[in-house]
């Protein structure tokens, strides 16, 4: 099937969101709900000796206080966040939960709970224990180590060996995570900000030992997630459900912004060693990419940080490793562009250093090392339009005019620098089911139990069904984010569009066939007796040989029709599927004062079929903004002595503000991928990949300084 790009339709929920009429899960009324507030551990390591909740229990409105001592027991492995035992693993770990009639009463009482601890020695930062780095079970979905060829003995005329670091980041969607839970016997209703209604339902069933069928999880509208509402949020979600079980009343738990720095995951800090070798003509001969990253003292998570080095370039000898250091700190988890985001910073900066060393244009170096297949797996690309991305973005940027000389572009007091980077991100797909139904009144409803993080999944589902069925977009209603619906994929890793597209299109096409067959078989239809092959549906109208009938009339007479389809990825793929991109950045640096501004970015992306160019552009800008934050702003700072995150608010944890935004010039390269069902690659992650490197490389072009530790700060530029 030829992939076909969708139209640039504004999102169908734009009006309700902009007017404030949209109802998020936290707005769900739940009669008789108690409100929860958490008591957080102030120590990084130790044990709870005693909890004195007498004062709190006397306070107005307080219903009860949950601690490890009285919380209902959970089946199976639990997180320290779930109040199951007295061990403390990080500052901020919940050690008690207070339930009260109002959220304010709960907070006041939480402050009055006295917890006594026995503290143990703690490792509060990764750098205190680099010698204890160990190999985890996996890095993301893949093996921690890889090796092809012989990187140590590969021939080399030129070599770069450098160390790069990236700090801890936090996700910070605008909407804070919340859960509202109500038990009735062993049946459970959960309204929550979750990126995975089905996965969380299964885990809840296991943890509480109740049947899956008795649990309904609802997450219809999300105000962003970036990974903070997936597996990282699940332990807190359990707290709300646990509290409701204990109290015998519905419970609402909403995290504070400060709690989001400790309780819903983080992008782990990394230390990356890059060794890249090349011939004098710039052909890569060896890459070694060794990473060390932070994990918590109680859990293990490793981003696939070095995997970008396995696939992005042609190189006969490549070795990569992922190691972790256990730290008494919050549990890391995936955050937008996990792995490829920080990993591409190191790889793409090292490439730039190599180009400089060789006296080659950085783009030319990349073109000379274009990979014509996936050298890690040996598989052919499903499609690879990286060269077209380079060409498109470089032309738009005017890269051909780049002077090789450092610091040679000036603009008043400012020195201007140009830098670039390549980007890739794997295509992840999951099994997905979807139903497309037409009701008696002619309304078409798409049902799929996936979620919309805010990027526009709802709109895309409607567009797909409208196009495949032949009805106007306005005739479509979309139901998502509910375990009562056919099971859809979790929202993360740019899964959703690539996973749901085939199922929705199949269901809509099947429905179209059924409608046509019904029409030609129905004596009351003007199309009765036509050959089904001669009937088409367009704009909500069945049309045959000169005669037509509105779909609404047909179903109004003959009844509702629904089709469900299921699609799953090939368990043994015969192709390697990646989205690609090229980013060109211009910075202006005030060399005296160390101030960097990103002035413009031209980027081109090849992501297969584009379902909605307007939404795609927004997604990519969002990704690029995240990359600018990675380059210049974001950093969670931990106090070494106490293990406490210091900047737990959005004034002190800096993310780019509007005034930090450059002019964005984004191109979507046409890419028809015949190997992917639906032809869709996903666009949620790739915008964040490569940006920090392009900016750091531009800073070097302006100033001659290599900044290898993010974020790029004033002190590094004036030192």
């Amino acid at each position, binding site marked *: 099937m030829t992939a076909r790009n969708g139209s640039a339709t504004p999102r169908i929920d734009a009006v309700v969101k902009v007017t404030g009429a949209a109802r998020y899960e936290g707005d769900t009324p739940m009669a008789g709900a108690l409100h929860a507030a958490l008591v957080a551990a*102030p120590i990084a390591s130790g044990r709870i000796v005693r909890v004195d909740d007498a004062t709190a229990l006397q306070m107005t409105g307080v219903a009860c206080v949950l601690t490890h001592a009285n919380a209902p027991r959970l089946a199976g492995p639990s997180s320290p966040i779930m109040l199951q035992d007295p061990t403390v693993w990080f500052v901020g770990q919940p050690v008690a939960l207070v339930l009260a009639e109002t959220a*304010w009463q709960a*907070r*006041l009482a939480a*402050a009055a709970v006295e917890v006594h601890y026995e503290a143990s020695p703690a490792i509060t930062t990764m750098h205190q224990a680099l010698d204890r780095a160990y190999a985890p079970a996996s890095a993301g979905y893949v093996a921690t180590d890889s090796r092809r060829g012989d990187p140590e003995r590969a021939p080399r005329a030129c070599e770069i060996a450098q160390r790069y670091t990236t700090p801890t980041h936090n996700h910070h969607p605008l909407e804070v995570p919340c859960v509202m839970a109500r038990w009735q016997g062993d049946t459970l209703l959960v309204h929550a900000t979750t990126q995975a209604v089905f996965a969380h339902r299964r885990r809840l069933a296991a943890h509480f030992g109740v049947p899956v069928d008795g649990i309904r999880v609802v997450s219809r509208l999300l105000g962003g997630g970036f990974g903070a509402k997936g597996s990282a949020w699940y332990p807190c979600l359990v707290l709300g459900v646990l509290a409701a079980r204990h109290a015998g009343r519905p419970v609402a738990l909403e995290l504070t912004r*400060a709690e989001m720095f400790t309780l819903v995951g983080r992008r782990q800090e990394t230390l990356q060693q890059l060794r890249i070798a090349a011939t004098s003509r710039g052909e890569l001969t060896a890459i070694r990419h060794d990473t060390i990253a932070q994990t918590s003292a109680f859990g293990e998570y490793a981003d696939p940080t070095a995997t970008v080095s396995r696939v992005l370039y042609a190189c006969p000898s490549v070795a990569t490793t992922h190691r972790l250091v256990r730290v008494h700190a919050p549990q890391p988890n995936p955050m937008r562009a996990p792995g490829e985001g920080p990993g591409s910073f190191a790889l793409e900066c090292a490439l730039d250093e190599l180009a400089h060393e060789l006296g080659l244009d950085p783009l030319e170096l990349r073109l000379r090392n274009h990979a014509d297949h996936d050298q890690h797996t040996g598989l052919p690309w499903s499609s690879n339009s990286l060269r077209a991305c380079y060409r498109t973005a470089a032309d738009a940027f005017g890269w051909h005019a780049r002077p090789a000389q450092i610091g040679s572009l000036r603009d008043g007091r400012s020195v201007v620098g140009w830098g670039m980077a390549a980007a890739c991100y794997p295509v992840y797909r999951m099994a997905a089911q979807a139903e497309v139904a037409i009701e008696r009144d002619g309304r078409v409803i798409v049902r799929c139990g996936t979620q919309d993080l805010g990027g526009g999944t709802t709109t895309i589902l409607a567009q797909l069904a409208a196009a495949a069925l032949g009805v106007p977009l306005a005739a479509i209603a979309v139901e998502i984010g509910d375990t009562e619906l056919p099971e859809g994929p979790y929202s993360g890793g740019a899964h959703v569009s690539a996973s749901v597209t085939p199922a929705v299109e199949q269901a809509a096409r099947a429905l179209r066939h059924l409608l046509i067959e019904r029409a030609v078989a129905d004596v009351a239809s003007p199309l009765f007796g036509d050959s089904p092959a001669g009937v088409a549906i367009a704009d909500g109208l069945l049309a045959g040989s000169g005669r037509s009938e509105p779909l609404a009339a047909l179903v109004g007479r003959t009844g509702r029709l629904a089709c469900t389809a299921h699609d799953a990825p090939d368990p043994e793929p015969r192709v390697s599927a990646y989205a690609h991109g090229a980013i060109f950045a211009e910075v202006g640096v005030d060399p*005296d*004062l*160390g*101030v960097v*501004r990103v002035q413009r970015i031209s980027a081109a992306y090849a992501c297969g079929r584009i379902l909605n160019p307007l939404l795609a552009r927004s997604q990519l800008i969002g990704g690029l903004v995240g990359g600018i934050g990675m380059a*210049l*702003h974001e950093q969670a*700072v931990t*106090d*070494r*002595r*106490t293990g*406490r995150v*210091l*900047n*737990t*608010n959005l*004034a*002190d944890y*800096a993310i*780019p*503000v*509007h*005034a*930090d935004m450059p002019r964005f010039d984004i191109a979507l390269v046409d890419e028809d991928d015949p190997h992917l069902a639906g032809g869709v690659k996903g666009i949620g992650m790739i915008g964040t990949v490569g940006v920090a490197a392009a900016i750091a490389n531009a800073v070097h072009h302006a100033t001659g300084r290599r900044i290898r530790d993010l974020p790029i*700060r*004033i*002190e590094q530029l*004036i*030192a």
Partner: protein
Amino acid sequence: MQPFDYARATSVCDALELAATRPGAVFVAGGTDLVPLWKDAVCAPPAVIDISRLPLGAVEVGDREIAIGALARMADVADHPGMAAAPAIVDALRASASAQLRNAATIGGNLVQRTRCSYFRTAGLSCNKRAPGSGCGALGGDDRRHAIFGASEHCTATHASDLAVALVALDATVDLVGGGAGDAGGDRAVAIAELFVTPGDQPDRETVLRPGELIRALRVPRTALAQRSCYLKIRDRVSFDFAVVSVAAALHLEAGVVRDARLAAGGVGTVPWRLRGSEQALAGARPGEPAFAEAAARATDGARPLGHNGFKLELLRRCVRRVLDELAGGA
């Protein structure tokens, strides 16, 4: 946020009376600093006195003086056409916070905003300013944003106001009312530089304001100095961020020499820091080399860097050089 008593003042007299009868009460106007501190349990005042409706919002630009009511909004002052007589103040206000905050925050509140030190703003960490006697977590901790001037072994937190730095450079005065009965009370005027006190062994005391004393207005002399003034702020992002280093400068040039110079710096001191060494290097000198280089070099007279803020010395010198070049450039 603990329960608290709330009273709305109907007049300045009423505000002072309310304060006198409510020990520990705080005045609230814009609330942009107080409310976040309160929510984070950094402070827990038993009573607030809402002064936001008092008629203290006027900006009057006279021939000899600019008078700014304490309840004037930051945005309104910055946008007042008469403020062109004191560009440093306009620059400082426009570089402060975000547009939304400037629309809500008042001039008086801006002066008494609390430090951005994370150890102060995180309940539970050691901080002599928030919890006297608990120690200073920043010393030996994360001190990148901390002071190189005016610190003590008890506190090294910087003063956060941009406006105050500009006011120090322009010799502003603060009019105060109330603050006790009899001899101790009454109206008084305090030079802005005298309003703030370095932490010493009492970091919780940040100003000379007496309990219940209210800032009524600011007065800025309208002089040749004020007319040739500017404010430069360096921060980690372009907007909505506190100063890493900032400099307010004012030059009175006459007959090709610097008759008078005022420089003050922000982001570097526990109080807005007057750069007297730089001023001395400029007095009576011809603008440009070598005086500007000397003024820049002397900006860090007496500076004492901590573990992670040593870069502020060089940055401060460069900022001083930059503002002097810009001010003299218009000569």
